[in-house]
């Protein structure tokens, strides 16, 4: 990595300041989310922040950004204590953050979003001049996004690039990235992080990267800080630490990685059959153009593809969130419209992506969210009456079984950390004894490695019991490890299909790219 990219702008040549977080404590009600945590981000370094789900990573950086007010602790910038009460203050000190979710306005263009993000925007915008400056900026930026496209037309990867560009455009010198790659394909992630790394090497940026992927830690970062249950668990140079050491710091114990072996299933029957499914995006443009597939019991069929090629809409159709414009779905040979009665009869479960948006009611409690599939039948209901005691007891059991970290069963699920929301949904969808069909979409986004391993083993175990699994994922490694059969979706059509034993990696890559 000797090539340095062209400098962004004359004024960014100045080196980034040093950021020190000293003895920071943050409580949410009775929960201590951060307990005396310190971190030192040296100028021009790429620093990783690791920790299990709910360890307090997002909370720490939100305190730095002035989103939360820390209960104790100090922030030093170049050695001087600074009060940061809002993201605007953080911007003033050159600190910018890219969030776990997108923050751009969908109806506006890339250029408009960039100008809008500026804190000093005047009331009148001279568009001619702005566009010239934006073009210059884009030409010198490490990666490009078309300025005139509306955000709604960007793929997930491009949106995430834009979020990072926004920070560069704001001349942030300290970049905080909170799981920026969970929406990117591994290829895109490497590209984006690689280009940022060049900026860091050139001494233009310091980066604090929150991630669950050790691969990203070892290939891009120099230093690492690890949190465990809100406390500082360790800190060191990436070169001197093995992955096992970091994992041990995260978990507080050494763990054997257990893999559940796949066992052949004796009597495969077709469970999910769909034919000629067509569906539109929200804006009415066709997203799925006539796909057909059969998934058998005891089989995991993986659907690979670059995000935005129709897999999201296909999953929504199968999960009952979107009506297809044509085509038929059958489960166990019977027509299937995804009504509650049919879901119950055929034991269909779903792990959608972005669980907080797709599968939870944020302000309802963990117990209520866990009861979403079962609240209307015994023992959780008697006739039309809810039996709260049974609902709570079930939730307590699931919280134990799936290690959901929550202060209580009554906590609104929206207050949990990203990974624990995921576990809440997982507990609800995987706890049933007799699952017949499982539809999973990117079930491991944003989860720490222990949880990923946990979910993978749960899925494989379910398959060994005879569950039919449709697994949509943008993580090719995950698909290759779990699937029995792999299908590639591109522009709303299945363009490749093969048993996993005969799968040709090159051909998969080419068909994903649409060749």
């Amino acid at each position, binding site marked *: 990595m000797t090539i340095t990219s062209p400098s962004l702008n004359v004024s960014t040549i100045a080196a980034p300041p040093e950021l020190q977080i000293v003895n920071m404590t943050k409580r949410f*009600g*009775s*929960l*201590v989310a951060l307990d005396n945590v310190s971190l030192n981000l040296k100028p021009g370094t790429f620093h990783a922040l690791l920790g*299990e789900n709910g360890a307090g990573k997002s909370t720490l950086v939100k305190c730095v950004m002035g989103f939360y007010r820390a*209960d104790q602790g100090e922030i030093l910038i170049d050695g001087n204590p600074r009060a940061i009460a809002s993201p605007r203050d953080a911007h003033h000190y050159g600190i910018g953050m890219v969030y776990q979710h997108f923050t751009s306005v969908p109806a506006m263009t890339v250029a408009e979003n960039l100008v809008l993000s500026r804190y000093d925007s005047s009331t009148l915008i001279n568009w001619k001049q702005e566009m010239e400056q934006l073009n210059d900026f884009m030409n010198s930026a490490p990666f490009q996004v078309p300025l005139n496209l509306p955000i709604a037309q960007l793929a997930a990867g491009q949106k995430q690039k834009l979020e990072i560009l926004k920070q560069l455009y704001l001349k942030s010198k300290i970049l905080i990235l909170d799981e920026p790659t969970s929406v990117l394909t591994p290829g895109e992630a490497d590209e984006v992080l690689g280009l940022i790394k060049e900026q860091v090497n050139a001494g233009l940026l310091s980066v604090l990267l929150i991630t669950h992927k050790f691969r990203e830690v070892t290939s891009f970062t120099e230093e690492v800080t690890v949190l465990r*249950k809100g406390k500082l668990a360790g800190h060191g140079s990436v070169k001197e630490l093995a992955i096992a050491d970091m994992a041990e710091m995260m*978990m507080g114990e050494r*763990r054997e990685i*257990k893999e*559940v072996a796949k066992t052949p299933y004796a009597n495969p029957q077709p469970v999910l059959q769909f034919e000629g499914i067509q569906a539109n995006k929200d804006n009415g443009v066709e997203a799925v153009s006539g796909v057909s597939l059969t998934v058998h019991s005891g089989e995991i069929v993986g659907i690979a593809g670059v995000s935005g090629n129709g897999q999201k809409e296909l999953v929504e159709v199968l*999960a*009952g*969130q979107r009506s297809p414009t044509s085509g038929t779905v059958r489960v166990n040979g019977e027509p299937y419209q*995804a*009504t*509650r*009665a*049919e*879901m*119950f009869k055929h034991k269909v479960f*779903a792990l*959608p992506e972005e669980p907080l*948006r*797709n*599968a*939870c*009611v*944020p*302000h*309802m409690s963990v117990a*209520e969210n866990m*009861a*979403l*599939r079962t*609240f*209307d039948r015994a023992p959780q209901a008697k006739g*039309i*009456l*809810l039996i709260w005691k049974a609902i709570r007891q079930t939730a*307590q059991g699931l*919280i*134990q*079984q*799936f*290690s*959901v*970290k*929550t*202060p*209580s*069963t*009554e906590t609104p699920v929206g207050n949990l950390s990203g990974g624990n929301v995921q*576990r809440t949904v997982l507990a609800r969808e995987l706890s049933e004894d007799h699952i017949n069909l499982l539809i999973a979409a990117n079930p491991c986004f944003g989860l720490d490695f*222990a*949880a990923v391993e*946990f979910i993978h*083993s*749960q899925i494989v*175990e379910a398959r060994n019991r005879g569950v039919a699994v449709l697994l949509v994922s943008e993580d090719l490694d995950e698909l290759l490890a779990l699937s029995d059969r792999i299908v590639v979706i591109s522009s709303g059509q299945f363009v490749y299909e093969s048993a996993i034993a005969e799968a040709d990696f090159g051909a998969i890559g080419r068909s994903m790219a649409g060749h």
Partner: protein
Amino acid sequence: MNWRRTLESICLPVGAILAGLVLFGIFCSLVGANPFGVFGSIWKAAFGSWSTFQNTLIRAAPLMLSSLCTALPARLGLVIIGNEGALVVGGLAAVSMGLAIGTSLPPVGVQALMAIAGMVAGGIWIGAAGALRHYRAVNETISSLLLNYIAIALLNHLVGGPMRDPNSLNKPSTAPLDAVNMLTNMPGTRVHWGLLFGLIACVLAYFLIQRTTFGFAARTAGGNIRAARIAGLPVGKLTIIVCALAGACAGLAGMVEVAAVQGAANESLNVGYGYGGILVAFAARHNPLGAVLVSLLVGGILASGGILQRSHNLPDATVLVFEGLVFLVVLYSDSLYGKLPFFKEKPVDASPPAVTPKSPSPV
């Protein structure tokens, strides 16, 4: 629930109403009345004695019913403000039913049919807003507001033309209901049985939302429609049923007004119980039991209109200024939940109980 939270949900609305009082006091002194005198009069007229408190109760009854028209759909995430319209069509339907049957049935039977007619009419009225919302994505706030205008125009048309009683000279009305069919007062009071309807409806609504599977499904669909779909809940059906139930409550309020107070349908039907109901629902944070208490308060304010005119020379619409000020402050106070440090849970320095220290192991 944590006691600080409970305290918060009591203190904030009460504080808001107090703040509304202060603002109203300022308003009174600006128009030249002594605010303390005005407050004293309002208190006396609303809660001062059993005899005046009964006036408050009479006004609280339709408010309770009408507030449910906003409070129930709010649990589904809908903002319905069609209370006035549903109340008016409910009153019209009840009168039509009462006049059509006349004395051919015993009074209890007539009253029951009038109540049903009012509820059906109100239910269809707001159910239509729900159906428009679900099938055609029409904004329910706007459609229910417009339905108010249609209902009031319909009322004016009917009492001014086809249903007009020729004997109603300066205030066009429908023919009066037979005296035997009127709702009577509860024994020993001047308060009609409508109050009981209101109380029962609020308790049932609370029970429906918090304790039944239907309420659970409605709250889920209201909280996140995508999650509701993934659980296979019939979102459209829920929307329409909840809206229809809400409209039925307001329609019943209309029936109570004609059958217990007015005796006929006329323009007195839309004197503000509909809009008052919206205020009650918001101040009670859409909790049906809270709506009972807030209805008493707002009923008291409405009951004191006359005395302000008589003893302070203020127009009787002054109480509407009061109502409006309280409404604004209540809406503002809604934004303060979770912001005031006093009501935040106090930290304890122990790790939360439900956390298992182990990492997940395959189960």
